[in-house]
């Protein structure tokens, strides 16, 4: 069972790889083989990737909000995936540079037998790693589903510390801590003191409660492998995959070399046509000429088929292409989440139209949908209604609409049209002060688009949407009513400045 756990797998692979790294360094010193040393550092980069993933997993289990991060650390895994993907790209880049160098200056492999041995050992370890992280790489759910169901069905008393829980010894203290804070919560007349308590012991409470939280979220995550966790593990999988490819190339190359290469013997004349070395060329040429003059029967050893020397860089290039091709989707996905993009399965326009067509909803603005991590999608919107009672009626429907799209964490701000305002429907009732226009997330380009809505087919969301093209913006801004002209101006300036 323990191998189902992500962290256990990562730790296991980390230990193996680090051990192998140490072994390789030692052996390379003993045999003074440079190839082994290079390969060992390759393993070290693997170790680093695993460490990054491990740190991300550790962080991401703290889903509880803290003083420093109101969302908890769920996003850490997406960041971990991004770091690994970028790291892998950098690695590919250095391999590319080396391959180019080898093209111009090929050199033979020394001690091919040692290299074969090292390569095979590395390959075994990498294949093991691939098996460990396999079902993440494919993107499937694997067996964690079925396992998870049995888990949550069971009643596991919390006093039983699970092996993967870090502060296992703090369990008892944790219970006391939690009950005490709950008690304070309930009975203290001043809610502030509880916060102060939490504040003072911020770190420790965090850590301890996180142990608990980790407990919970472990359940949750064993039930459904969150897609952010999948991203993280995919990053690790790709690293191990790249390493495995590298080992394969090393082994193939060394084998072919061992089999087919005709090395220059230590003694005796040797003509090496592959290595482009001017001095040697002249020397050997003159020697060969001299020899040829003397006796034609003496055969000169010619160093083996030259194409073998170019095999290494070619294989490296192929490997780089494969790696980049498989890393790019991971890079894209994690970057899109971090950029606060709308998740691809949600269509903002249709959502907007659904909301607008509800009875009692006059306008919708500041509609924002973004993905925190995995399946946690967050939405915010300002809904304009004629009066509070209408809002109460529609509030449930609004939440349902969001729920249907898969957005479960929403904050809806109702706005009621102030009596006697001719401002029209689009105006945001609670904007910040006018000089804040530059610092708002989306600018206060209100009202400009309210009138456009009827004309244009595409949906415009007032209060947050500013048209991209310059001339249009200018025109619509001038149409805006006097009360918002000030904001419109600053907005215009803002537009210009942003292009500076």
């Amino acid at each position: 069972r323990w191998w189902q756990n992500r962290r256990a797998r990562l730790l296991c692979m980390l230990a193996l790889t680090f051990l192998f790294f140490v072994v390789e360094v030692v052996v390379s010193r003993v045999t003074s083989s440079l190839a082994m040393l290079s390969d060992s550092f390759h393993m070290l980069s693997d170790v680093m990737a695993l460490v990054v993933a491990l740190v991300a997993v550790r962080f991401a289990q703290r889903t509880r909000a803290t003083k420093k991060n109101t969302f908890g650390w769920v996003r850490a895994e997406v960041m971990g995936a991004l770091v690994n993907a970028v790291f892998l790209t950098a690695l590919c880049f250095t391999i590319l540079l080396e391959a180019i160098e080898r093209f111009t200056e090929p050199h033979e492999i020394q001690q091919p037998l040692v290299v074969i041995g090292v390569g095979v050992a590395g390959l075994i370890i990498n294949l093991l790693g691939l098996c460990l992280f396999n079902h993440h790489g494919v993107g499937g759910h694997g067996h964690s589903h079925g396992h998870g169901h049995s888990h949550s069905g069971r009643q596991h008393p919390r006093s039983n510390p699970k092996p993967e829980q870090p502060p296992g010894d703090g369990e008892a203290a944790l219970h006391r801590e939690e009950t005490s804070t709950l008690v304070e919560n309930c009975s203290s007349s001043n809610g502030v003191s509880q916060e102060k308590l939490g504040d003072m012991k911020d770190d420790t409470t965090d850590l301890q409660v996180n142990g608990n939280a980790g407990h919970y979220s472990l359940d949750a995550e064993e039930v459904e492998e969150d897609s952010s966790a999948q991203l993280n593990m995919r990053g690790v999988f790709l690293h191990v995959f790249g390493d495995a490819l590298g080992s394969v190339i090393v082994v193939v190359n060394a084998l072919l070399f061992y089999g087919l290469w005709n090395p220059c013997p230590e003694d005796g004349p040797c003509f090496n046509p592959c290595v482009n070395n001017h001095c040697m060329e002249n020397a050997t040429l003159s020697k060969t000429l001299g020899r040829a003059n003397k006796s034609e029967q003496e055969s000169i050893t010619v160093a083996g088929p030259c194409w073998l020397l170019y095999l290494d860089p070619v294989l490296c290039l192929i490997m780089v292409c494969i790696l980049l091709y498989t890393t790019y989707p991971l890079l894209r996905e994690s970057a899109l989440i971090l950029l606060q993009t709308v998740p691809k399965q949600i269509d903002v326009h249709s959502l907007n139209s659904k909301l607008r067509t509800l009875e009692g909803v006059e306008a919708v603005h500041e509609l924002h949908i973004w993905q925190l991590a995995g399946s946690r999608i967050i939405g915010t919107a300002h809904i304009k209604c004629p009066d509070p009672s209408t809002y109460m009626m529609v509030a449930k429907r609004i939440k349902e609409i969001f729920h249907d799209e898969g957005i479960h964490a929403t904050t809806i701000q109702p706005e009621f049209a102030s009596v006697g305002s001719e401002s029209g429907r689009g105006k945001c009732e609670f904007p910040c002060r006018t000089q804040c226009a530059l610092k708002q997330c989306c600018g206060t380009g209100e009202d400009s688009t309210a009138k456009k809505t009827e004309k244009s087919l595409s949906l415009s969301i007032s209060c947050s949407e500013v048209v991209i093209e310059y001339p249009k913006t200018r025109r619509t801004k001038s149409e805006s009513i006097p009360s918002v002209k000030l904001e419109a101006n600053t907005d215009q300036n803002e537009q210009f400045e942003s292009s500076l």
Partner: protein
Amino acid sequence: MGRYSGRSSRLILMCLVSLVLFAVEISVAYVGNSLSLASDAFAVLSHLISMIIGLFGVRFSRIRWHKANTFGFSRADVLGAFGNSVFATALMFSIFVEAIKRFINPQKTEKALLVLIVGIAGLFFNVFNYVIFMDCCYCRAPQGDPETGDSPNDHKSPEEGPEKKKEKKSEALNIRGVLLHVMGDALGSVVVVVAATIFHVLPLGNAPCNWQCYIDPSLSIIMVFIILSSAFPLIKETSIILLQMVPKGVNMQLLTDRLARVPGVSSLHEVHVWELAGGKNIATLHIKCHTPTDYQDAAYKIRKVFHEAGIHSVTIQPEYIDQKTSQLLCSSPCISKACDSQLCCSQREPSLAKTNGYAEKNDSCLSALHKDSGSSKNDIAIPIEYPRAEDSVKNVKNRDVSDGKAQLSSTRL
């Protein structure tokens, strides 16, 4: 006006020059077997990438709303800076590894004269870089440095008095930071020149390696540390934004205190504050009020509190108190309990919920102890369970398992 300031064209020119310089430096590094030149080449490459990111960032930041991204693309800069720093770190790691290999297995620098010439060219390039970008980018305050891919704050803020002083200070800091950065790069080139000079002046020829061969790797390690020292702060800064952390200038404790004291607000929960990019802070929260007029009054005051804290985009969700719900729990999370794992913050863990001191807590606690069975799809409020004080946590967990999900406290958005 803004479009043709020439900054873009300068950026493009520098990009081309950097690209050429990088190609030259890396090839000479391989030919001359000089590691320090290779590390300088990588530094130039990382600058090149940050300039490209800056170029794209300027283009993207004009888009305010897009159907793929409701916030516009202002975060692209931040993400680009982060990616670039990680890339630079990885490259420096490979240089570090190479240097260690050279300590074990020392190698000579050949063609020292060529390396020297290229090193001097790199030094000139750094100075040239500084000169070109000095007037437009290095001496402007909140405007970040696009050349180095710092998260830029594109807007000049016409703010009030005390903020201007803050800006001057940050301007001074910014300039100092930039100067340090430029000096660091120049130092890298100096390192290359020094190493190459030694080999040129005292050529080794065919002799075995002596102390000279150890200069190159040691100087390379120094270069690695120089570059990392400028990459790490950038990584820290950008990851604060990318991880949705509370921005630096905001004190959550103080903020929630002030918010709870606003009259009309009984309690508040699900307070989230984060930074989009470049000083734009966004907040959302849920408040509990008694009546809609309460809410409307409180809303203005709440925004004022946020405004003073520097947060200008706020979304407030009002929830109305009724007898059944506790003060601290969210009355309107998603429509069913099954969504809990997909909420931004699980409802089971207590967090940052605050109540106004005036509210009566006793009623809500006791009444909340009644278990409302069955999920009510008709109300907005979802029945909650509040553990008794004497219940051990174990007990709650049992109950939790037995009826799906019990909520200990509210942290739902």
